[in-house]
């Protein structure tokens, strides 16, 4: 049998962090008491009329521009009809054939630096459904589901991709970097846990080289990228197996159980896909002024993907450095300030490594800590000119975190300056003399014992020596090298 390749497309729902809902003035909320953010519009009382939130339109345009989408000169809303208790009107106001953002393309970067291009089919505006909790009822024998309308009517942008992805790993890379871009745009919290970003994957397999698509299944609502990646992996494996054993994949909605790693089929709602879309008569078209769109285009911040390229190509960072540094807009700003004052690659090493490691214990982010970007640059400078050793620099950093003093002051106050070579040689000579057995081992070629000498020296000097220099001096003392 010929080899099979997976074909994957995703649909991403992004809750916009606007102050009010999509079609009414209620504030959306997460975690408040149920049904405390509602009004006659989002509860669908008779006779009410929706009014479009202009800020949601602005944010949809910002997203569309970042994804290189064609912006529709005139887009309209549609009603998507279905009955479900989380939808009080029995239709969702969405967009159908004329979405606000049309075709675009997003380029992600894999770890090896290669590009992952994903076509964007569309990005459209719609309203979120209410929160339905199953089995939350209490009436004797009823044990019903309960509905909280706080979330109902929250603005959503739904981004739909072309079936351009070919592996679970690529799917996760694309989603992570898309999320990063959305965070940089400041349009959404993009919290998978809280559901402000949700992703569904359409998965199918086909013989390599085939141009037609296989029967797809829809993997629903994963709440973490890790689970999504594993879920897609499991679904690809399941489909391969079905085809290998001569079967046919059924078009259905499936669910991944993270605990067991199993794929289960969700009961397909009868006729659920007959949504009978028709133009929303209560809303007039949205026709964004081209001058407005141009303005939004020019105001766009530098996005993480081009920024990553710049960090690697122009500032000498590795792909991995660049990925960490572009983790959040705050970290980028922090790094950029430090990198303007000292060697960017060294700044990146210290920020992503020791600084974040030490701050993690305090539960702080670099930009929230006592350590300013200028401090990082100063520390890198002290290292470069040989004023402090690497181990001492870590202690200096700890001191800055504690006090907020600049690194030079900490070096002075704590006596962390590098020892001069003569003093260091004397100390090493003492240690070698005091440990003849270990010295013999080193002469016998047992290099592992070097760690012992370095450790002893660090202990004696309080970390004020460079381990590499120590090694050279130990060799000189023991082996006469």
């Amino acid at each position, binding site marked *: 049998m010929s080899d099979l390749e997976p074909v994957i497309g995703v649909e991403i729902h992004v809750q916009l962090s606007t102050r009010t809902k999509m079609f009414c003035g209620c504030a959306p909320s997460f975690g408040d008491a149920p049904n405390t953010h509602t009004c006659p519009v989002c509860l669908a009382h008779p006779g009410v009329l929706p009014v479009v939130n202009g800020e949601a339109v602005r944010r949809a345009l910002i997203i569309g521009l970042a994804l290189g989408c064609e912006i529709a000169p005139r887009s309209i809303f549609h009603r998507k009809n279905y009955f479900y208790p989380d939808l009080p009107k029995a239709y969702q106001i969405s967009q159908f054939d004329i979405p606000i953002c049309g075709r675009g393309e997003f380029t992600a970067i894999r770890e090896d630096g290669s590009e992952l291009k994903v076509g964007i089919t569309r990005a459209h505006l719609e309203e979120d459904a209410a929160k339905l909790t199953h089995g939350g009822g209490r009436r004797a024998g009823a044990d*019903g589901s309960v509905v909280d309308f706080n979330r109902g009517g929250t603005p959503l942008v739904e981004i739909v991709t072309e079936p351009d992805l070919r592996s679970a790993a690529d799917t996760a890379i694309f989603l992570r970097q898309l999320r990063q871009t959305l965070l940089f745009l400041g349009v959404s919290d993009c919290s998978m846990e809280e559901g402000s970003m949700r992703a569904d994957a359409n998965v199918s397999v086909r013989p390599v080289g085939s141009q037609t698509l296989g029967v797809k299944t829809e993997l629903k609502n994963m709440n973490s990228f890790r689970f999504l990646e594993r879920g897609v992996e499991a679904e690809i494996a399941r489909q391969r197996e079905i085809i290998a054993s001569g079967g046919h994949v059924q078009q259905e909605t499936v669910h991944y159980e993270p605990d067991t790693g199993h794929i289960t089929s969700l009961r397909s709602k009868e006729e659920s896909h007959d949504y009978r879309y028709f133009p929303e008569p209560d809303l007039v078209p949205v026709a964004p002024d081209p001058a407005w769109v141009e303005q939004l285009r020019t105001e766009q911040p530098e996005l993480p993907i081009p920024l990553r390229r710049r960090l690697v190509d122009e500032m000498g960072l590795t792909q991995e450095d660049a990925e960490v540094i572009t983790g959040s807009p705050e970290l980028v700003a922090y790094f950029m300030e430090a990198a303007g004052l000292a060697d960017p690659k060294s700044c990146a090493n210290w920020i992503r490594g020791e600084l974040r490691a030490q701050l993690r214990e305090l539960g702080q982010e670099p930009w929230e800590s006592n350590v300013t970007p200028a401090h990082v640059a100063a520390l890198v400078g002290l290292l470069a000119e040989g004023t402090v050793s690497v181990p001492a620099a870590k202690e200096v950093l700890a001191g800055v975190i504690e006090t907020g003093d600049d690194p030079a002051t900490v070096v002075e106050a704590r006596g962390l300056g590098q020892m001069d070579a003569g003093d260091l040689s004397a100390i090493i000579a003492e240690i070698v003399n005091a440990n003849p057995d270990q010295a013999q081992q080193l002469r016998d070629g047992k290099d592992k014992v070097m760690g012992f000498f370095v450790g002893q020296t660090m202990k004696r000097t309080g970390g004020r020596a460079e381990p590499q220099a120590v090694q050279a001096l130990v060799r000189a003392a023991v082996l006469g090298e």
Partner: protein
Amino acid sequence: MIDDTTVRHVARLARLRLDDAEEQVMREELSGILEHIDAIRAMDLDGVPPTTHVIELENVLRADEPRPGLSQEDALREARAVVDGSFEVPRMD
């Protein structure tokens, strides 16, 4: 004339229960509507832009400013059943 299956399908989507007589009435009325649409489709409409509204308005947008809504008590006032500040509905999963 549309067939009975189509009428029943549309009725089911709209959560309507129709008896045989009602089904027959619906079949005739829906067919009438579709015939009217067929009449429009038969016309030469090249160059006529599709309109979704009779009024030529665009961009009726609202500023993103919160307004007070309903209290929880008022929101739930018409609910058939309430549990812990939420609407209770038949079990859906």
